[in-house]
């Protein structure tokens, strides 16, 4: 799994070494690591819906690896961005504060940090499964911000970002739909309750 997930890095490095990255190698490396982050996040989020739909158990076992790979690529993507801006933190701060495009991407990265830090079985125990699960629902916020970041980063053709957004929305809906009937009757909120 991990080896497979890191294969694109190897290809990227090989391409860079042999001058195959085209006229704008930094831009291409930025785009590819960003896409890898998004694709891996979507794959990691697909695990639970896939298990719910099929009853298979293997998706649950590869979820963590996919999530950590996604974080790795997000960090790499960010490092390339920093390199691109000469590690000038004031430029970065300006970008984060003033450009919604960067704000979304940066926030997504920040949200992934606690998820990566709490990926160990020990962290699950320490937090308690309920709280750990709630924390890791942030992955949906992160991936949505990631898709928005991608959408905003594209000059014109939004087909690809919209495909990602649709897949993310689909995965989210499967979870919601699957969760609703599992609630015990006593726990469901009365219909007359004020919306919150």
């Amino acid at each position, binding site marked *: *799994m991990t080896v497979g997930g890191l294969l694109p890095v190897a290809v990227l490095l090989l391409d860079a070494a042999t001058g195959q990255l085209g006229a704008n*190698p930094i831009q291409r490396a930025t785009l590819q690591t960003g896409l890898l982050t998004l694709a891996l996040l979507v794959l990691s989020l697909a695990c639970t819906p896939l298990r719910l739909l099929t009853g298979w158990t293997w998706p649950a076992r590869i979820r963590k690896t996919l999530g950590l790979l996604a974080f790795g690529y997000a960090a790499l993507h960010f490092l390339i961005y920093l390199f691109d801006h000469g590690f000038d933190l004031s430029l970065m701060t300006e970008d984060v504060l003033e450009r919604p495009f960067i704000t979304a991407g940066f926030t997504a990265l920040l949200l992934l940090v606690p998820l990566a830090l709490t990926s160990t079985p020990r962290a699950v125990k320490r937090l308690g499964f309920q709280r750990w699960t709630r924390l890791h629902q942030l992955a949906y916020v992160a991936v949505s911000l990631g898709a928005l970041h991608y959408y905003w980063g594209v000059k014109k*053709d939004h087909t690809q970002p919209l495909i990602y957004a649709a897949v993310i929305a689909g995965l989210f809906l499967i979870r919601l739909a699957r969760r609703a009937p599992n609630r015990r009757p006593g726990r469901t909120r009365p219909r007359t309750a004020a919306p919150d």
Partner: protein
Amino acid sequence: MSEHPTSPDRTDPDPGERRILTPGSPNPRREFLRSAALFTATAGALGGGLELLTRRPGGPGAAEAQGAAFTRPARPLGPYDTSEAVTPYAQATSYNNFYEFGLDKGDPARLAGSLKTRPWTVRIDGEVRKPMTVDIDTLQGWFPLEDRVYRMRCVEGWSMVMPWLGFPLAALIRRLEPTSKAKYVQFTALLDPKQFPGQRQAVLKWPYVEGLRLDEALHPLAFMAVGLDGRVLPGQNGAPLRLAVPWKYGFKSIKSVVRITLTEKQPQTTWALAAPQEYGFYANVNPAVPHPRWSQATERRIGELGRRKTLPFNGYAEQVAGLYNGMDLRRYF
């Protein structure tokens, strides 16, 4: 993977790295091979899938475009040339935004073979005394060809140095004899989905239209290019006739022009129609006015790893800033 037997206590997330030591396992060697095969298959499937999903062609640069050479003596740099290092021809002809061919920067070089640049005529009409349709060879024969080494800054934040070959737009406009009503120059690119596969999708409103105010068009920097680096202009760079207005973002410099119309009203230009809040009619390079989604303060010169500061009017402020006296360039971006 689902058919692989799992025991409830197994927490190893990676089936490929597993050693299966079930007591009843008949043949450890077979099990090892099976694990190795699973490992390779998983790694290959995930890695290959990710690569397929996220790889974007960058390419080593298209094969050298096979343009015939213009034979002209070398000449010293003129007052409008930059002495900055010229972008290598292979990169200038393989990294192009030319949505008529496709959205990817490699598409134009890959598909430019479908563009037929001879015969090619240019329609000249609107507020001119003698509207006409003229063959490209006749048109370029009207003027002595000049070299111009111009910086080119794309709105996306990258730049190149392009050694154009062509003639000043002002010379053409004067020859067209504009009437007193002419205030703007509108350029229209070829519309032909057979030659321009990108036009089969309504990504932009085709044909591509660009325009300049008449005084901008008459500025000595505004240039019509028919060649690049001493060779006939390659299709991906806008053959056979394109505009080069170096103080504006690259999208203003329309490619593969088939019609030049002098107008009284400001033309409805393609990118200003597509996203008016992001791309204005003027599109002057301005580091102080960010694109709504990214900064314009810096740019990457193609061939360099770092970024350099973007200069007002792409470094041509001394020559062109006067054209915009009294205009609020935040509003007229």
